[in-house]
């Protein structure tokens, strides 16, 4: 894989991570986390870990986010940090 592309994805991953824990709305946080997972999954595909990437796509970007959103609707979107 081209390392420049790799590098860009990695930087985006870090941005997503920082955003996910700093954003003041939990729903946004959930969505950003989904994006984070998806970027991760791209990264892993690039490294040849297709099975892991597949799983992460299904779980991290899919099911986890669904759980997350379901839970947020049961609780609250509000957060202080």
């Amino acid at each position: 894989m081209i390392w420049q592309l790799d590098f860009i994805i990695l930087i985006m991953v870090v941005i997503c991570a920082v955003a996910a824990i700093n954003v003041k709305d939990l729903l946004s946080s959930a969505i950003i986390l989904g994006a984070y997972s998806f970027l991760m999954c791209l990264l892993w595909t690039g490294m040849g870990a297709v099975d892991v990437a597949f799983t992460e796509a299904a779980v991290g970007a899919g099911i986890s986010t669904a759980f997350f959103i379901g839970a947020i609707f049961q609780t609250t979107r509000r957060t202080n940090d």
Partner: protein
Amino acid sequence: MIKQCDNVIVQSVSRFLTPFILLFALYVIAHGHYSPGGGFQGGCILGASFILSMIAYDIAEVKRRMTEKMNTVLTGVGVLIYAGIGFICLLLGANYLDYGVLAEILPVGTAKARALGTFGIEIGVGITVMAVMVSIFLNLASGGEHEEGSVE
């Protein structure tokens, strides 16, 4: 959140998509030997298809098709298939999970028997994962109160 959704587009798209998702999920499970995928991924997708219907329609609708008790039982059945295949190997005189010994009761060679054993457990994993994903989502999204279908 999961209220009866009146959006026709969402409903019809999900109705249209669900069979394909299911088919893909089964493909992923069955084709795990040759391509990326396997019980876990397939199970997730299966579960996702149910979750999609839950979001598009409502919980009660989905529960009509698959009752809660049935879902819970499937949770156990999946792992039971897995552990049971292992146990059969034990009963056939080999070590636990040694699928090679399945060749004694299946008309194939040892390596193929292993592949078949693998396939069997993939199915088990798939069932469990599907059922658990549905069950967790159901409980999380409704706060444990399935009857009312939705809680805001």
